[in-house]
C-alpha cells in the first residue's frame, strides 16, 4: 500500500507547512521597535508600479532608521504579497491583524473591500490619489484617506489645465472633451465631476469605457478622433493599458499634446513601452519627478552606499519611486506625531490621530529635504487630504518634464461633491441600505 504511505507523506508535509504558517497569524509588537506590515504586489500585471513604490517607501524608512528612527524607535517591515487581488488583500489584512499601523495597498478595489475591516479595527487605510474620493471627509470616513488629490480633485484640475491651454475657462464653452477610461471603480469616479464641470463651463464630454485589460482600443480611438473629433482627450487608464493609446493616436493622427493622461499613467513605465511614439504626451501628477531633492540624494548616498537599498538605484527619482518616498514620509510623519501625542507602543488609532496632525508645510518639507516634491500636506479630523494640486508633465522620450505650475482643484466644487457623497453614505448606513 505504498499509495497510502504517500498519503501520509503528504499529510505530514501539509502538517509541517501549516505549523510554519501558524505563528504568523498571532500578532504582537516587540519593544523598542515599530512593526509595519506592508501589502505589496510583486507579481502579476500590476507589479510594475508597485515594485517601484514599495522600494521608495522601504528605502525612505531605512533612511529614517539610519538617522535614529522615529522618536528613537526603529521601523521594521513585513511584506504581504497580494497580487493586487481583493481576496488576497483581505487575507493579508487578516494575517497581520493587530500589527497594522497604517494600511497602504496601493489598490482602489482593495481599499473598498478593506473599508469595513479597517473601520472596525481602527486602522487608517490610505491610498494616495486613489481610494474613495469622498473619504476626504475624515469625519464620515474616520479610517480612510486619499492623502493627495482625490479623483474628483484630479478631474477638476485637469480641466483647469485644459482651460489654461485654451486661455481661460470661458474658452471651454462648446469644446468637446472625450473621456477614455477603464470601466471600474477608478475609471468611473470622475463621472459626476465631469457632469458638473461641463454644466459650469459649457463644454461637452463623452465617455469611452474600456474593460480591463483594455489592450485593444483602436475602435474607440477611431470614434474619438475621426467622428467625435474631440478637442481634448482625457485618459483614465492604468497598467499596460496606459501604453496602448499611442499607436492608435499616431494612426488616427491625433495631436499628441491634446491627450492628457491621469496621474496613474504618469510613470516612466506607462509610456516607455510606446517608445518615441509617446513623445510629447502629457499626464498629470501629484508630485514632481526627478531626483533633485535632498531626501533622494540622501537615500542614494546613505542607504545605497551602505548597500541597504531595495531596488536598482537607477529607479531612484522615477515617478513610482518618488511616490513611494512620499508615502513613506506620510506614514513616518503620522507615526512620529502618534508617538509624540500618545507615546509608544503605537497602534492603529494612535497613528490615525498622528495622521490627522500631519502638517507637512513647506518649512517641514524643507526639513525633510522634500521641498517642492509635493505640495504642502496639512490634515485634520475634518480633512483627510484629497484637495491637492496637480502638476502636468510631458514625456520627452526619456524622462518626464514638468510643463505647468501646481494647478489646484476647483475646491468648492470638489468640496460640494465630497459633502454630498459623504452625506449620502451616512444616510445609507443609517437606513441600512447598501452603501455605495
Amino acid at each position, binding site marked *: 500500500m505504498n499509495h497510502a504511505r504517500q498519503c501520509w507523506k503528504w499529510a505530514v508535509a501539509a502538517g509541517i507547512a501549516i505549523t510554519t504558517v501558524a505563528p504568523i497569524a498571532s500578532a504582537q509588537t516587540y519593544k523598542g521597535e515599530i512593526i509595519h506590515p506592508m501589502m505589496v504586489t510583486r*507579481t502579476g500585471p500590476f507589479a510594475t508600479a508597485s515594485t517601484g513604490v514599495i522600494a521608495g517607501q522601504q528605502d525612505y524608512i531605512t533612511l529614517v532608521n539610519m538617522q535614529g528612527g522615529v522618536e528613537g524607535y526603529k521601523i521594521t517591515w513585513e511584506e504581504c504579497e497580494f497580487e493586487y487581488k481583493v481576496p488576497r488583500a483581505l487575507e493579508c489584512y487578516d494575517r497581520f491583524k493587530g500589527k497594522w499601523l497604517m494600511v497602504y495597498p496601493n489598490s482602489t478595489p482593495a481599499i473598498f473591500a478593506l473599508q469595513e475591516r479597517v473601520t472596525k479595527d481602527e486602522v487608517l487605510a490610505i491610498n494616495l490619489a486613489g481610494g474613495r474620493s469622498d473619504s476626504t471627509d475624515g469625519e464620515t470616513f474616520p479610517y480612510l484617506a486619499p492623502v493627495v488629490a482625490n479623483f474628483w480633485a484630479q478631474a477638476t484640475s485637469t480641466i483647469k489645465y485644459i482651460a489654461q491651454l485654451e486661455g481661460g475657462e470661458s474658452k471651454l464653452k462648446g469644446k468637446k472633451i472625450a473621456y477614455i477610461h477603464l470601466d471600474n471603480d477608478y475609471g468611473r469616479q470622475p463621472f459626476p465631476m465631469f457632469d458638473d464641470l461641463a454644466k459650469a463651463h459649457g463644454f461637452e464630454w463623452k465617455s469611452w469605457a474600456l474593460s480591463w485589460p483594455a489592450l*485593444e482600443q*483602436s475602435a474607440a480611438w*477611431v*470614434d474619438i478622433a475621426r467622428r467625435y473629433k474631440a478637442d481634448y482627450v482625457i485618459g483614465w487608464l492604468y497598467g499596460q493599458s496606459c501604453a496602448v493609446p499611442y*499607436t492608435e493616436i499616431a494612426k488616427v493622427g491625433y495631436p499628441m499634446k491634446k491627450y492628457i493622461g491621469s496621474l496613474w499613467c504618469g510613470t516612466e*513605465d506607462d509610456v*516607455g*513601452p510606446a517608445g518615441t511614439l509617446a513623445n510629447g504626451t502629457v499626464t498629470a501628477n501629484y508630485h514632481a519627478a526627478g531626483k533633485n531633492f535632498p531626501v533622494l540624494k540622501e537615500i542614494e548616498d546613505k542607504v545605497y552606499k551602505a548597500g541597504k537599498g531595495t531596488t536598482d538605484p537607477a529607479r531612484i527619482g522615477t515617478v513610482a519611486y518618488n511616490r513611494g518616498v512620499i508615502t513613506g514620509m506620510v506614514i513616518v510623519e503620522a507615526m512620529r506625531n502618534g508617538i509624540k501625542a500618545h507615546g509608544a507602543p503605537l497602534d492603529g488609532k494612535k497613528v490615525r490621530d498622528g495622521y490627522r496632525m500631519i502638517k507637512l508645510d513647506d518649512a517641514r518639507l524643507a526639513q525633510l529635504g522634500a521641498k517642492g516634491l509635493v505640495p504642502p500636506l496639512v490634515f485634520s479630523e475634518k480633512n483627510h487630504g484629497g484637495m491637492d494640486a496637480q502638476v502636468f508633465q510631458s514625456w520627452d522620450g526619456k524622462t518626464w518634464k514638468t510643463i505647468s505650475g501646481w494647478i489646484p482643484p476647483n475646491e468648492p466644487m470638489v468640496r460640494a461633491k465630497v459633502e454630498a457623497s459623504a452625506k449620502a453614505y451616512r444616510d445609507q448606513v443609517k437606513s441600512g441600505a447598501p452603501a455605495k
Partner: protein
Amino acid sequence: MGELMFGIELLITGMLIGLMYSMVALGFVLIYKASSVFNFAQGAMTLFAALTVVGLIPHVGFAWSLLITAVVMCVVAVGAERIVFRPLMGSTQLTIFMGTVGFASILEGAAQMIWGTRPHGLKLGIPHEPLMLGEVYVSKPDLISAAIAGLLVIAIVLFFKRTKIGLGLRAIADDPAAAQVVGIPLHRVWAVAWALAGMVAIASGVLWGSRIGVHFAMSLIALKALPVLIIGGIDSVAGVIVAGLIVGAAEALGEGYIGTHIGGGVQDVMAYVVALLFLMFKPSGLFGQATIQRL
C-alpha cells in the same frame, strides 16, 4: 469625414486587428488538432516568448534574439509535451486542460522571475503615420502585422497539407489510436505541434508587443482568440482567418455604432456575443466538421 467613410475605416481597422487575433488563435488550433486539448497556456507562451525576445535584443540584436527565442520555445514546447502531456496521456480533456493551466502558471512565474516585472517597448521600425486611402486612414504596422499573420496561417495550412509530420498531425487528430497503429510517432508529432505553437507565440508576441508593448498583461490577449476559435471551428486552420476578420469587424463596428451610444465598453463583449450566436446556430463553426454520434 462622412459616416460611410467612418464606417469603412472602422471596418478596416477592426479586420486588421482581427487577423492578429487569428494569429493568436492559430496557436490553440495547432495543439487542438494534434491532441484535441485546449491549451490554456498559449497566452503565457506568448508572454514568455515576447519577454525573451525583448530581453535578448539589447545583448544580441533583433535577428539573433528571434533565433535564440525560437530555440528556447522549442525547448519549452518539448518540456510541455514531457511534463504536461506524456504523463497525462489518457486522462480526460478536462484534466489535461487543468494541466495546461498549471503549466501557464509556471511559465508566467518563470517569465517574471527571469525578465523582471517591468514592461518593455518593442519597435519594429515600421512608420506609424497612417496610410491615407482618400479619407480613410489605415495603420501601416497593422497592415504588415495582418499580412504576416495571413502568411503564417497559409504556411501552417501548407504544412498540414504537404509535410509528413503535418499529415501525421491530421491523422492523429482524426483517430489517435489508429494513427499509432500505423506507426505515427505520437510524442514526436505532439512535440512538433507544441513547437509550432511556440513559433506562433513568438510571432504574436512580437507583433502584439510592437502594438501594445511587452508586459505581463499580454498573456490576456489569448482570451481574444477564444471567440475566434468558436466561430472558425476549433479544428479548422483556414477558419480562424475568416473568424478573425468577423470578430475584428464585429468588435470595431459594435464599439463604433453601439458602444458610442451607451458609453463604450462593448468591444470585448461583442466578440463573445457573436461567438454565442454562432454556437446557437452553427455549433461546429464555419469550417469545423460536424460530428454524428454512433450507437
